């Protein structure tokens, strides 16, 4: 259960950031949406809001928090589940609480504040979605928010990555129904995270070549993935020469989107924003390059049999 960021600005009086560090990673989040701006129903801005930060260590974001809860690394799922139980008034095992590194009173206080809120929002980051439990943590956070709706208005939203990852997700979904990890090799979309997601494919060496657009896997991925990128043809399209460019066969410099290339970017809450580039660039846009590559591929003779009539479909 989610909302666009304007709803947060206008209504949210209780904010939880979990496993994220907006002060450093989403620097305009506090001032544009979540903490300081005056909203339609939040006339005093920051004064009308309470912010709780849940993380394994005190980050820069803790300075802005009213309450900081230091959860033990790898124990987010347990903490979320205990909160779900407390919300429903169920009995809690003391050992379970102790595992999280927090005290029962802290968790009870958090739940009381959540229920007293007029509009609560839980923003969760990679500290939740990428640590022990992974998508199970995200599921637990979303379920907590869903169940809170029996008591008050409550939403949960992921703090999405930079660039236009949200836009890519949106378009993948409307052309294939799946957000990522999509295999088109059989002529229709198939989805299996863990099998078709990027790191898994590269580590296993399943693909023959890689085209990298708007990302820098050479900077962050595990060594076997990088080795595979090195030994197979890798092509990079980027405004800058990246770590990945340095191990690829071809690097094509393209115009920076939003600065000298037009288009649309999807904000982290999936709102499309038009880009009006203020500058010109001597380099082609990503779109131009991709079109020319596609046209060149279409001119090639196919190496696989091409059906001349439609296949039988049940």
């Amino acid at each position, binding site marked *: 259960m989610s909302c666009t960021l304007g*709803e947060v600005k206008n209504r949210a009086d209780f904010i939880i950031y979990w496993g994220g560090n907006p002060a450093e990673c989403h620097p305009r989040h506090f001032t544009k949406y979540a903490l300081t701006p005056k909203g339609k129903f939040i006339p005093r801005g920051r004064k009308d809001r309470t912010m709780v930060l849940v993380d394994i260590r005190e980050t820069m974001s803790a300075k802005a928090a009213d309450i900081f809860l230091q959860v033990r690394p790898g124990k987010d799922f347990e903490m979320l589940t205990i909160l779900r139980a407390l919300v429903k008034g169920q009995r809690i095992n003391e050992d379970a609480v102790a595992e999280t590194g927090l005290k029962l009173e802290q968790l009870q206080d958090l739940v009381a504040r959540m229920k007293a809120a007029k509009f609560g929002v839980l923003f969760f980051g990679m500290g939740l979605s990428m640590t022990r439990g992974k998508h199970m943590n995200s599921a637990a956070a979303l379920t907590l928010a869903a169940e809170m709706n029996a008591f008050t208005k409550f939403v949960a939203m992921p703090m999405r990555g930079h660039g236009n990852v949200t836009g890519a997700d*949106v378009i993948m979904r409307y052309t294939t129904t799946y957000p990522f990890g999509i295999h088109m090799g059989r*002529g229709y979309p198939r*989805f299996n995270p863990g099998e078709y997601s990027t790191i898994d494919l590269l580590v296993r060496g399943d693909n023959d070549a890689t085209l990298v657009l708007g990302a820098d896997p050479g900077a962050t991925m595990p060594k076997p993935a990088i080795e595979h990128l090195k030994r197979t043809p890798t092509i990079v399209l980027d405004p800058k020469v990246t770590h990945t460019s340095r191990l690829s066969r071809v690097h094509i410099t393209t115009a920076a989107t939003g600065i000298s290339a037009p288009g*649309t970017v999807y904000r982290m809450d999936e709102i499309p924003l038009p880009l009006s580039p203020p500058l010109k660039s001597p380099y082609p846009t990503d779109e131009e390059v991709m079109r020319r590559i596609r046209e060149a591929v279409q001119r090639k003779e196919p190496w696989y049999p091409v059906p001349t009539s439609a296949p039988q479909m049940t």
Partner: protein
Amino acid sequence: MIRIRNGKVYDPANGVNGVIRDVCIADGKIVAEVDVAARTLDATGMFVFPGGVDVHTHIGGAALNFARGLIPEQHRKATPIFHSQYRRAGIIGTTPTTFATGYVYAGMGWTTANEAAVPVLSAKHTHEELHDTPIIDKTCCVLMANNEIVLDLLENDEQDRAKQVVAWYVWAAKAYGIKAVNPGGVAGWKWGKDCKGLSDVIPGYKKVTPAKMISSLAQIADELNLPHPVHIHCNNLGAPGNASTTIETMKILEGRRAHLAHLQYHAYGGDDWFTMRSAAVEIAEHFNANTNLTCDAGAVLFGNTVTVTADGPWQHLLYQLTGRKWGNLDVENETGCGVVPYVYKEKNVVNAVQWAVGLELLLLITDPWRICLTTDHPNGATFWRYPEIVQLLMNADFRKEQLKQFPDSTLSRMVLPELTREYTLSEIAIITSAGPARTLGLTQKGHLGIGADADIAIYNESNDVAQMFAHPRYVIKSGEVVVEEGELRKSGEGRQFAVKPEYDESIEDFLRPLFQQHYTMSFENYPVSCDRVHNLEVHACKYCGK
């Protein structure tokens, strides 16, 4: 140039009812004659229908795309579409991908669709998806009944300014009409509440009621001369006993035209889930008497689907009832959406009543021009199952067979067993094409008269009506054969229709500071520019009905 020779033509808008005659096409339109050089399609033994027009469906945009992401386990089992020279790859299932949507509608002989719910804030997203929906022509309706700027104006009785704002929004979204979903209820849901009584004050306000919003929007649609009347998803959807809310809504609309969406979901009697029953007789009676109204069926079919609607509070209830996955996305200042995967089961008494009510409304409403065939895709059933409904309407014996599976305790909640009416082919052409085209005010659609768009479906005559309507022999769109021998041929991109209602440009001075305060996007970035709407055709604001 094409000549369709010797087919049995059904063109109810022009009084043609199963007459064997030729239909000629040139330059994308129906013409009186073509010369001998024209391609000839031999339609001997076939029926020739105007292409289907879907007046209420959800085929693209933020809410439907949200639904796609929620159900990957369903997509795995869905029929895929393989990439080929003429086809982009895709997945059909309950929330078809954009390309698949165009192909499957065209494959069934449906050539125009109205995306029924668009938030202005994400209208650019909707238009992107409609751009990638090939072949069919498209319109969309923009959500207004929970817009906070409009609510604030109505609270202060600023009726005229509200009209300027609505007109501005319709053009900003590049929309074709106005949609109202659970007026006041979705605004209440922003605080976790609903608004079920039409005279109740909307949560967060002191004066304005759903009744005020409904009558204001109906008045605005009339004053702006929109070709399609205000399109209303009534309050209290899905609840036992909600027929009284629907009848009250009809009373509020007296004297004004309006289109009631998916009427099936708003035609229940009873006091609770145990006593829930059909109130189709009562609803049909009032509807038949109120000739200013049109509606679409919103019929339900048994099977798996996913519910997608702007009615956020209803979806929260459905989540609590079913325990299934629930997605919700509130849109600042405007509306929201809720998504819950759902299965309609024969053994579920409520679902059985819902199944009956859709058919009862189609059979009890006497004027087929005023009720359109829909399932509120994907809510009641996916659109590619429309032929099953056609079969149920045309064949009373087949209906009787289906009714045998229900126990007496279920049958006593419905009147369907008593209904013997059978739809004729002409009436089917009306509810699937001519009627919805007229309701939408698309004068060039839904008929085969000279000058009409050449959107035509040609069916092999067959006793198996469901099979017949599911597999047309030929489908022509804008004068080009797009489906032939069960295969997709060319794939044009279709057009999008919008309207530009008249408004005083100075309303932007009123809106700009409000945007600054309450939205999170700059005012300049908000409207959809014309170049973002593919093959845009702006239609005149001209109500063409009676």
